[in-house]
């Protein structure tokens, strides 16, 4: 019997290696898998490259992972959150690398990785400093730049519902980067608010089919608060 649902955070996090590329779902605090970040902190992997929209806020979650000097590099579109004190401090001290990526390019690089597309052309960033050093090509009279896929060794995902095959639904704007992190990562780890029996989630309502998911942990933490 296939059962992707695990019973402990340790089981969920097992096998994450130092130096992993970690794709992190969430936008603001909505849909951000905070329990999984805490699990990763506990698990101990270091020298990580983390891709997420924001670079953490306050001293919790991603900010705490960074504060513990476990993140070598952050790939994000918007490092300045409501309270980016940890990131700013590390960055000014030269203790963390930063790759700024336009938000749509970040999302598309993840989707491309999930779809097996190693690179794609986009108009976003043409004529700006984002285009420096990138391959340019004119297609149909417009100039585009080449952007490469962004594959994750590990994807950390927050879902609303999950079943033992790993089928997922999301809640409202909690969807954001989560389905992309799931499809783009070799090891997709999910925290789900609700565990459903197989067949209980209407196939028409599944957003992320279980093929993109490896392990699920039930984390019924309630509503997000604060950003």
């Amino acid at each position, binding site marked *: 019997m296939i059962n992707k649902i695990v019973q402990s955070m340790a089981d969920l996090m097992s096998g994450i290696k130092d130096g992993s590329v970690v794709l992190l779902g969430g936008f603001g605090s*909505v849909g951000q898998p905070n329990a999984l970040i805490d699990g990763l902190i506990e698990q101990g992997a270091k020298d990580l490259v983390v891709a997420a929209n924001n670079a953490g806020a306050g001293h919790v979650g991603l900010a705490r992972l960074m504060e513990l000097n476990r993140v070598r590099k952050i790939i994000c579109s918007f490092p300045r959150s409501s309270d980016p004190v940890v990131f700013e401090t590390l960055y000014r001290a030269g203790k963390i690398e930063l790759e700024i990526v336009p938000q749509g390019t970040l999302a598309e690089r993840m989707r491309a990785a999930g779809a097996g597309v190693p690179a794609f052309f986009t108009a*976003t960033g043409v004529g700006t400093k984002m285009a420096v050093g990138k391959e340019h090509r004119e297609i149909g009279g417009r100039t585009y730049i080449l952007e490469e896929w962004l594959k994750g060794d590990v994807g950390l995902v927050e879902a609303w519902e999950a079943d033992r095959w790993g089928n997922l639904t999301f809640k409202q704007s909690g969807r954001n980067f989560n389905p992309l992190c799931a499809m783009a990562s070799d090891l997709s780890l999910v925290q789900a608010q609700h565990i459903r029996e197989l067949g209980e989630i209407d196939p028409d309502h599944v957003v992320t089919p279980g093929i993109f998911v490896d392990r699920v942990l039930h984390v019924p933490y309630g509503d997000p608060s604060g950003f």
Partner: protein
Amino acid sequence: MSETAVASFKPFTRPQMAQRAAADIPEGWYVNLGIGIPTMISDYVPAGREVIFHSENGVLGMGPAPEKDKIEPWLINAGKQYVTMLPGGSFCHHADSFSMIRGGHLDLCVLGAFQVADNGDIANWATSENDTAPAVGGAMDLAAGAKRLWVLMEHTTKDGSSKLVTKCSYPLTAPGAVKRIYTNLATIDVTDRGFVVLGMAPGLSLEDLQARTDAKLHLPA
């Protein structure tokens, strides 16, 4: 520029700027509003006119801010403010949301800006080439991807320098993207001829406006 040369004119307030832009959005357009003053535009769409608002974080068909006791903690916009959904609204993931932007499906995006040049270049994400950790967010996607880009901003900086320039001194968000600018002093189209003034704040003359604008202003042909 002498302040006394301009006896009495009334700059548009921010709500008036938003109202002027809102009045020019026709029914049926899909619109993304940037963080800041542009967000106010949704409050001024004339009653009965259906305009569909999009937010980068996968929200299409966004309604106004909720009453305090009706906040949905899972429902925010790209500015990380609580919002509501209108009947007919939908959610999608970030790659689909940015497909709406990058695939040319949005009729309009309205952004704030530091500078706009008279060739349509926009600078709105970093104030220095050496900005240590600039935050681009979705600005470059929106500027390059929407069918048309309008800018809503103050005409001048706090120290009085023109934000309408012949060449942006700040890092570009996108070249040649801006089609129209709504400022506290004027509404201006960006055309092949450069800046064309469509309207001005009451009491302001073209000379007054030009005195506050680095780039050459034109009147409609």
